[in-house]
């Protein structure tokens, strides 16, 4: 755990590292950020990345020549919504052949603590945190504590173990609960559960309707999972709720 103590981001919570959420939006495909999600994320620092993917046969320069004004207007609209919710969001616009590469590059450049994979959502209150293996408990706690600080929603820390006798996920969930309390979240808003599952992605997707948003670690990086972790992408595709992927700390 890091010893340095950063000034709190909002209110008087003991937030170690003010969370910075990167929100990639396919702006020219009419994707947007639901208003309730804007309100939910507004306590965190936010960067809106409007991107447009063009096929390889189209130079990005050519796409920007034609669509730049539209893309920037769409991104500015989203930033305006954040502004109404009390958060001045930074905006970026990118034209790319490779969405993942662009999101990863921008996330690295701004030092994002989490990336939003948007999905339609109604009101945002209840948070599901599926826990498997190790992840950055501090970052996750900073993020969850920040966005839940002024609301009334609850967070469910859900430990998913491959076998009944493995305790790693449960220990992680307990640690996360403690850390959340340290960060100032009332303990009656934190619930801890534990389940033994074979197919965690399936299980998380199936349970997603009970919650408004999923917050999870990006999982171990392998060559196959690539940037956001295959798993988070798969969950975002299947789930009815948006997914916030907490990034691991850059190794420096």
């Amino acid at each position, binding site marked *: 755990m890091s010893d340095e103590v950063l000034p709190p981001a909002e209110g008087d919570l003991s937030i170690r590292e003010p969370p910075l959420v990167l929100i990639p939006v396919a702006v020219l495909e009419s994707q947007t950020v639901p208003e309730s999600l804007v309100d939910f994320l507004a306590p965190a620092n936010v960067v809106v990345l409007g991107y447009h993917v063009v096929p390889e046969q189209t130079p990005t320069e050519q796409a920007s020549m034609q669509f730049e004004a539209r893309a920037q207007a769409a991104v500015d609209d989203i930033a305006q919504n954040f502004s109404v919710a009390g958060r001045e969001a930074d905006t970026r616009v990118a*034209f790319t052949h490779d969405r993942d590469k662009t999101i990863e590059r921008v996330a690295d450049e701004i030092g994002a603590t989490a990336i939003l994979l948007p999905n339609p959502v109604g009101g945002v209150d209840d948070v599901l945190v599926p826990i498997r293996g190790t992840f950055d408990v501090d970052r996750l706690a900073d993020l969850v504590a920040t966005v839940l600080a002024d609301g009334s929603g609850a967070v469910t820390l859900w430990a998913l173990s491959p076998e009944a006798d493995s305790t790693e996920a449960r220990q992680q969930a307990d640690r996360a609960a403690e850390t959340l309390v340290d960060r100032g979240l009332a303990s009656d808003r934190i619930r801890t559960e534990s389940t033994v599952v074979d197919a965690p992605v399936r299980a998380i997707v199936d349970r997603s309707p009970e919650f408004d948003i999923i917050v999870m670690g990006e999982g171990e990086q392998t060559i196959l999972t690539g940037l956001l972790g295959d798993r988070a992408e798969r969950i975002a595709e299947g789930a009815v709720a948006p997914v916030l992927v907490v990034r691991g700390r850059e190794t420096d």
Partner: protein
Amino acid sequence: MSSQPEHQNSNVSGETPTQVADPTQANEEMTVSEGGSELERSIGLVGGLSIGVGTMIGAGIFVFPGLAAGEAGPAAAGSFAIGAVIALLVALPASELATAMPKSGGGYYFISRALGALPGAVVGISIWMGLVFATAFYLVGFGNYAAAILAEVGLPVAGSSVVVSLALVFGVLLTALNLFGTENAAALQNYVVGVLLTLLVVFLSYGGLNAVGVFGAQTTPETFLPFGPMPMFTTAALVFTSYLGFAQVATVAGDIQNPGRNLPIAMIGSVLIVGLLYVATIFVATSAFDSLTLSRFGETAIVEVGRSFLGDWGALAILAAGLLATVSSANASILSTSRAVFALSKDALIPQFASRINLRYGTPHVALAMAGGPVLVLVALGEVEVLAEVASFLHLIMYGLMCVALIAMRRNEPAWYDPDFRVPAYPLIAGIGALASFSLIVFMQPLSRRIGVAIMLATVVWYKLYADDIQLKGVL
């Protein structure tokens, strides 16, 4: 509208050059546009090499060995070597210019910025045509291979009408694929080129060992220069089409990662790779057959070489490789054409609607149509050697002028000129490069030269009528 006051910097439609992104505002991963958007660079070194190698390899091995050996005998290997040296002399200056101006448009962009709008317009429109001729040439090559495969599996096909029909059908298919396809074509191209290279190295190694007598076969059946030294040079002019790919790497310069490193390596590396393979191919082919026989085999001569080594199985393998190679060449050329059209229309040298993109597919449909349409007309003519030479002619003009552009840039460097790669002894290399490029033209057939000159004159007329007022020299 038609009479403009002086130096409005606009064409007769009132359009002015559009500055989308300043190439000096680029880092390894992206360029920042004037409007503050980020233009991601997503093509890596392998992608760049595969554009270069993939474009070039189609012609030199799978179309030319028969034609070239027929004209120069075993000295055709020398013709390919001459071509490689000239290509390298041009690739070096092109690399420097590309690292200084990593923008879509390649040669046209460098020349218009170094020498001005008129030379830029002549080269830009000519290279559009040059790529159209090259694509048509690759497609006819494809038609030959497709027809040969049909014949090989026993379908009763004969005559050039079948070849042309197959080439036409495939030309339409490729254009449509680029118009509507959003799949990752570049990754596919990488695999195609990888498979091809593997196949060729195995084939050429076997053939090479065979030629030097390891397997007890006959030695080279004739003298190196059966027709004297002159055909070696005229043939070099013909086969130079096989080296037209390295400059295509520069047309994607705006999308390539770490351009300061990857552009020079991709351009120079791809010339070296294919040059070596070409020389080896001719050596192997002329060792297996005498040049008269090779010449009679025509465009698919290398298939007969494969058959002589490994029977029908070898013939089929080479046929399949040839099919893939001509496809990758034609496809890469259509894409380069579309980028050349974009670069011209961005600078208002042709109407700006040519760079329109449709939002649904995200593809530059006007530019692609301006590539695919004329290609089909030329394919219908089916004149392989003329197509190849006109393509070479127009490319050689651009190559020569790129060398001149380098000298012009270096002698009066603008403040923004800061290439990551600098050509050593540039007046010498660029000077010889320009001279060699222009002198290859002298060795071409009169018909090809006349068509080439006519196209260039037409571009001058177009410029004078449409875009006389555009200023591009030194403007980024």
